[in-house]
């Protein structure tokens, strides 16, 4: 079973990201689960969302404490949220930033991947410069970094389920897929 945690702010689409990833995995015949950190939501507040993906039926309905993959949609969260909490020793982290992964210090040895999802989102007209909607872009990066689903599957799912601007969202995912960088470029 693979457990994934998304960190974002209310309004950035973290919850939709967790759902789109679940839908993509489901399209590839996995069993899936996606849920937000439940509570009283509002725009601007930190949001955590989760996805579980498994070949077998997912029966575990407890919270995700030791994710295999962590995704950060908003670097400003690093001041108030410990995004690496519980991350498995070999777990991967994908971050929305223009910085190369070598320049991101999270105090852990885990493999890091970075992509400027905000820039890509704005380029494709997703959200505003002040509040870009980076979720589909970051998913493209996640898919490249982790191979958890095929990019084609993700693109299909985005085109079917993105609430608006389906083409633009799909293109953002594809661009991020191309542009994401790991520490030692493969």
């Amino acid at each position, binding site marked *: 079973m693979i457990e994934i945690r998304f960190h974002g702010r209310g309004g950035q689409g973290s919850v939709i990201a967790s759902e789109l990833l679940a839908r993509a995995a489901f399209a590839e015949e996995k069993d899936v689960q996606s849920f937000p950190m439940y509570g009283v939501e*509002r*725009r*601007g507040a930190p949001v955590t969302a989760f996805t579980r993906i498994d070949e077998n039926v997912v029966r575990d309905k407890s919270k995700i404490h030791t994710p295999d993959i962590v995704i950060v949609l908003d670097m400003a969260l690093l001041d108030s949220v410990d995004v690496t909490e519980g991350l498995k020793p070999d777990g991967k982290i994908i971050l929305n930033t223009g910085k190369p992964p070598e320049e991101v210090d999270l105090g852990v040895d885990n493999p890091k991947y970075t992509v400027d999802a905000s820039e890509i989102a704005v380029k494709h007209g997703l959200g*505003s410069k002040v*509040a870009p909607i980076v979720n589909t872009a970051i998913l493209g990066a996640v898919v490249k970094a982790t191979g958890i689903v095929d990019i084609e599957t993700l693109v299909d799912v985005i085109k079917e389920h993105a609430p608006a601007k389906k083409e633009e969202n799909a293109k953002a995912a594809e661009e991020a897929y191309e542009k994401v960088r790991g520490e030692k470029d493969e």
Partner: protein
Amino acid sequence: MSEEEDVFRIVIDPKDHRDLPRTVITDCPSDLMNKTGSWRTLRPIVDKDKCIKCGICWKFCPDVSIHVKEEGAEVDYDFCKGCGICAKECPVDAIEMKKEEDYV
């Protein structure tokens, strides 16, 4: 000590149920820590020339975030959540809801 740290001076740091009061009791005012103005996506802008200081906005505001002063109604942007009720109720249309991001 900052104003925020001051607020917590009498809040105990409970380790388990034995340290808790018999029910949940919060120190006042918790508002100092929780400026709900950050929740806004729209903000009310008062045209003081139109304002007749009737007090209807103050009466209807669910968050006590608009007050009638000498020069007219004034919004407390620290706490106003941008619900738009004041704008809706104002009898002289002196209040307009504008995009928050244009003012940040």
